[in-house]
């Protein structure tokens, strides 16, 4: 076995597995019941899939100077994926995209309710004092 065939075989395996990761994300999107679990399916396989495909590309090119740009591309993905997932999840929680019956515990809800009550009390208090202060 010469090294060329080995490299080709490895990159072929990487490409197929990387493509399967995309399929896994799509299956997760279709089968999971609520937005939050779909987010897991949308983010995690993407990262590994791109890693494998970029590695296959680097192996196929057989030059060292493509690796830094591949690393940069993957690091960008690594930095952006959690941020966008967090933003979507946060918006999803705040706009009540949750199915409470699918959660075994929700430790955020109590905190949110307490904060909402406090804000309401403060608003009421401010409203009362404003009337006196303004005149």
């Amino acid at each position: 076995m010469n090294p060329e065939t080995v490299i080709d075989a490895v990159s072929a395996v990487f490409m197929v597995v990387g493509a399967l990761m995309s399929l896994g994300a799509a299956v997760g999107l279709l089968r999971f019941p609520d937005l939050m679990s779909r987010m897991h399916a949308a983010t995690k396989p993407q990262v590994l899939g791109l890693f494998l495909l970029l590695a296959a590309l680097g192996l196929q090119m057989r030059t060292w100077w493509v690796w830094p740009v591949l690393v940069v591309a993957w690091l960008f993905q690594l930095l952006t994926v959690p941020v966008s997932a967090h933003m979507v999840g946060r918006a999803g929680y705040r706009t009540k995209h949750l199915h409470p019956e699918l959660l075994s515990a929700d430790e955020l809800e109590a905190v949110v309710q307490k904060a909402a009550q406090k804000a309401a009390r403060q608003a009421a208090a401010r409203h009362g004092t404003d009337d006196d202060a303004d005149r």
Partner: protein
Amino acid sequence: MMQIVLTVTAVVLSLAAAGAIIRIARGPSLLDRVLAADVLLAIFGAALCIDMAANRHLNNLMLLVAISLIGFVGSVTVARFVADRRENVRES
């Protein structure tokens, strides 16, 4: 061997794209659709990557980076400005 790999990945990615499009069409809420669109962009990126690896060129590399950044900016923007416009909140 590359021909087989190309065929297999083409089939797999087409199925994945079909799944994401079904979710975009069906997705009960806006955020579901944004998420599925993000996955669809990632699938396009994967297709570009496989094309480059199979044909040994780097023409689409910058396009790949741009696609992932556009997906990021798009989903963050929508998530930032999404409002709850459904009437029955607990039903999605």
